[in-house]
């Protein structure tokens, strides 16, 4: 399914949410918010009234795995909008990736959930197709994967 979509097709998908990332010549870049007073960076860029206190900053595309786990049961719907039911649920890995001097970002981790993940390993940003079970279509979202 997801693997059948090639890179070009993923780029054409509608993003899961606006303002999470932008594409620079087809390369995804996450968008954080830098606090105008403290200089601290958060992800995602805050929205609404809170946005006035932040400047949008592009985040580094690579970083180090800070921690990880595997989601082994289907999360409750709502809020989860992934496909399937408890029986055919496909586990996925999640983690935090430390983008040096910027921020530690929580993310889905692409690929086999049982791949070897090790704290400190190099990770890079990618776009991943995400199937919306309630709309029967794919959107794109951000994820990290180990640097090959």
């Amino acid at each position, binding site marked *: 399914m997801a693997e059948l979509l090639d890179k070009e097709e993923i780029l054409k998908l509608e993003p899961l949410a606006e303002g999470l990332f932008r594409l620079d010549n087809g390369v995804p870049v996450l968008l954080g918010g830098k606090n105008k007073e403290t200089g601290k960076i958060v992800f*995602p860029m805050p929205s609404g009234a809170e946005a006035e206190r932040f400047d949008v900053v592009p985040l580094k595309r690579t970083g180090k795995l800070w921690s990880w786990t595997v989601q082994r049961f289907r999360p409750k719907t709502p*809020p*989860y909008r992934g496909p399937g039911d408890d029986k055919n649920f496909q586990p996925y890995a*999640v983690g935090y990736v430390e983008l040096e001097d910027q921020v*530690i970002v929580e993310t889905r981790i692409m690929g086999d959930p049982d791949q070897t993940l090790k704290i400190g390993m190099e990770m890079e940003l990618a776009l991943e197709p995400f199937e919306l079970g309630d709309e029967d279509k794919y959107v794109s979202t951000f994820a990290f994967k180990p640097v090959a």
Partner: protein
Amino acid sequence: MRDVYIIGAGIHPFGRHDLSGLEQGVAAARDALKDAGADWQDMQFAFGGSLAAGNADAMLPIMGLSTMQFINVANGCATGGSALLSGYWSIKSEEFDMGIVVGFDKHPRGAFNADPKASGLPQWYGDQGLMLTTQFFGMKIQRYKELYGISDETLGKVAEKAFQNGSLTPHAWRREPVDLDTIMNSQMVSDPLTKFMFCSPAEGGAALILASEEKMKQLGAKGVLMRGASVRTRPQGSFEVFSPSLDVERGGTPTEVASKAVYEMAGIGPEEIDIAQIQDTESGAEIMHMSENGFCADGDQEKLIQDGDTKIGGKLPINTDGGCLACGEPIGASGLRQVYENVIQLRGDAGDRQVPGNPRLGYTQVYGAPGLSACTILSAA
């Protein structure tokens, strides 16, 4: 300022029941009043709370419309701890002489439903499956294990101890011991934590009667002295549930802050504590909270737990009633259950699970979303 005593402790067994949450709170309140030898009509105040089972003051028409000051408390996982803290100050400040604190709850089965908007988070965070408390617990202990050398088997031993202690505890939900192999080989929920290493949402109620020394003597009651009580929220840079990003500059934890405050109030250090009830939402939490509450250095848990030092009869018995792992976690009642357990232990009334050697100083710590901890230190009379 004057001393505050817990002169009565009551509980409705944790687990799954046909009763409503409120009815379980009422049962706990009656149990506590009976234990103290006091009447509901003599309570000058009540602080009570539940997360999912309605307003605590709904017990007024059942218990009696006494016109007392009754305040509903809602403070997440520290609801019980916050109710107790409020009662503590009410007597310590000399405003009131006697009152009750009560907590109860009744949650649906399975993981708690998460609502991004209610937590001030964007919808996509929940949409793509990142908004789960279980993931947070898995990731916090995963990193801690790597940094400080905690083994998977030690995680299993925490759960094994919990079910062993639960088997000796009348108010526990899980009353059967579970062997280490079963725990280690049970379904993986969020790596490295298996099903038996997680507590479950549950039902139950707990209540305490607080009084001044004078009032206690009038009633001829035997109390346990509250040496300190604290509630603190998270500092900058702490790692908490439902965080789409974390500060690269890492900070402490709410437990460390609340713990430091309660030791200062009591004027004692962690090395003097004889028995501790600390938050064990899952096995990893008990391990990390051992150091966050000052009982050992980071990484020392591996040896302490492997040596059995945290069992009943060990150097520092921890979660002697089986904790959240064996009792389940009815949010509003959970923090008060810990205090109930210490009261019973310090009085020497804990029966089969009694910690030997007449424990004198008992410590409790409840922790929860969105990043707060409540601690108490009690001393035997």
